[in-house]
């Protein structure tokens, strides 16, 4: 346990030390939540915009810390030779990957608290569904995006990872059910959109928190992404 805890602490420290990354992961979801909350923009069948917005921004926060932040950080650690150096220590590869996933979960937890506080105090949000299930989905979603981030870093070079992660971020923001529900996208795009991990994630969060449903289908889709992502990430992980 001691190596895992120490490495997790280091991973959190490294996350917080990349200021520009902290900015995009922490600030962007908060600003979007406040902005769209104030102008009250939401799809038709949401009587309160915050019921649509909060799940969206929780997913966005998870995505930016897991997919974007983690992939870029890991890819640069490889190009700086840090992973190679760690590979010669007794720290196991599974502990290193686990420490990275842990750090994403813990940092995300902080963001979730901030977003929920703003939603509750600023926009009168009250949870209606099963909070335990919502928490579980958050963990699955965080692990999924951390896995996908590690996968990106595993197969791409550092500079390419940076570009790919940011492109994916924008793509999923628009077409992956975050800023707009995927099932309201026109024609064939909606079908693809709904299968994306961010859409499955945000749909599950909305159905649980706003409608009190169990959201079986989106949870299954999200879990499949998670399993695939984590397996592929550990297969493609290279020390150098």
């Amino acid at each position, binding site marked *: 346990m*001691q*190596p895992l*805890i*120490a*490495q997790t*602490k*280091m991973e959190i*420290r*490294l996350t917080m*030390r*990349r200021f520009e990354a902290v900015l995009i992961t922490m600030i962007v979801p908060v600003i979007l939540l406040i902005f769209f909350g104030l102008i009250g923009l939401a799809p038709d069948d949401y009587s309160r915009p915050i019921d649509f917005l909060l799940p969206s921004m929780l997913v966005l926060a998870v995505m930016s810390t897991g997919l974007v932040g983690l992939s870029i950080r890991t890819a640069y*650690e490889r190009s*700086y*030779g*840090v992973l*190679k*150096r760690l*590979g*010669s*220590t*007794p*720290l*196991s590869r599974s502990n290193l990957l686990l420490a990275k996933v842990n750090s994403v979960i813990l940092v995300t937890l902080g963001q979730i608290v901030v977003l929920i506080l703003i939603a509750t105090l600023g926009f009168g949000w009250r949870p209606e569904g099963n909070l335990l299930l919502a928490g579980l989905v958050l963990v699955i979603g965080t692990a999924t995006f951390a896995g996908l981030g590690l996968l990106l870093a595993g197969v791409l070079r550092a500079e390419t990872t940076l570009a790919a992660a940011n492109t994916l971020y924008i793509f999923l923001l628009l077409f992956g059910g975050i800023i707009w529900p995927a099932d309201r996208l026109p024609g064939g795009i909606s079908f693809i959109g709904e299968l994306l991990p961010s859409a499955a994630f945000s749909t599950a969060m909305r159905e649980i928190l706003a409608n009190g449903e169990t959201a079986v289908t989106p949870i299954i889709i999200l879990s499949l992404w998670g399993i695939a992502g984590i397996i592929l990430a550990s297969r493609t992980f290279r*020390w*150098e």
Partner: protein
Amino acid sequence: MASINPAAQSIESRRLVGANGSTEAVTARESVAAVSISDLRKSYGDLDAVDGLSFDIKQGEIFALLGPNGAGKTTTLEILEGYRKRDSGEVNVLGFDPQHDADSIKPLIGVMLQSGGIYPSVTPFELLDLLRNFYPNARKPEELLELVGLADSAGTHYRHLSGGQQRRLALAAAIVGRPKLLFLDEPTSAMDPQARRATWDLIEDQRNQGTTIILTTHFMEEAERLADRIAIMDHGRLLTLEEPATLRRNGGSTVRFSSPASIEPAELEQLSSAVSVRSTGQGQYIIETENPIVLLDELTTWARTKDILIDDLRAGHETLEDVFLRLTGHQVRE
């Protein structure tokens, strides 16, 4: 364990005795090589990076592995460290095969990479404080920082350290876990002469405490000062493996000089007691001879008649650099 054997207290084995005087471990260790390589081969496509390499590294010695760029040094080290798979041959590191028992070897080795390997935004203290958690009996960060002279920079981010300070931190990081075998890949590159000498002392201390050290370097002075034995390799093969003094003694007598005039080596070869002539570039010439006194006479006469200025004229054995050049045909630095 084995009893203390006074006969084993030769000058050679005295070095092996740990700071705590644990003689019994020494007696047990002396019989086995720390590293043993036999007919090692590794190729990348058409390139045979390591081509039938065999040697042993003794317990407690500093073993310098020299060779021009692309000689196969790094590939060899990386196979020993467990980073690369070999194509064929036998490799034994501290009793284990790095390809199959990497997990058993990792707690026993310390690695200093040729460059990088450290988080840019982390301080020396934070790095050492992290690594100590990976080893059973780790050194304290404060102690290590003091040892490598970084106590005053303990809180500076790695990227803001000077090149020499970065190397010293990498060295400290390599010895956190009190390794039995230490890999140092060009440990003093980017250091100023003062830091380099302090680092040499530190490396010798590690050896004196019983650590086996494998070292690559571009500084011949470093290899001569530190190494108990020197291996020179090129094209993936071992060219020679000797103690530094033997290496130089085995070479012939030479007369060397520098001159501002550009001289064709062929011209010098016509001196009757010159065996061979090499130019090292930068106006330096080395003439191998069996009779240095006669050659000196011939050379000065030749220079006087041709009106060529000769500077820094010396006769003697080959330097390590000469040996390197003769065996590999390359400059040490290219």
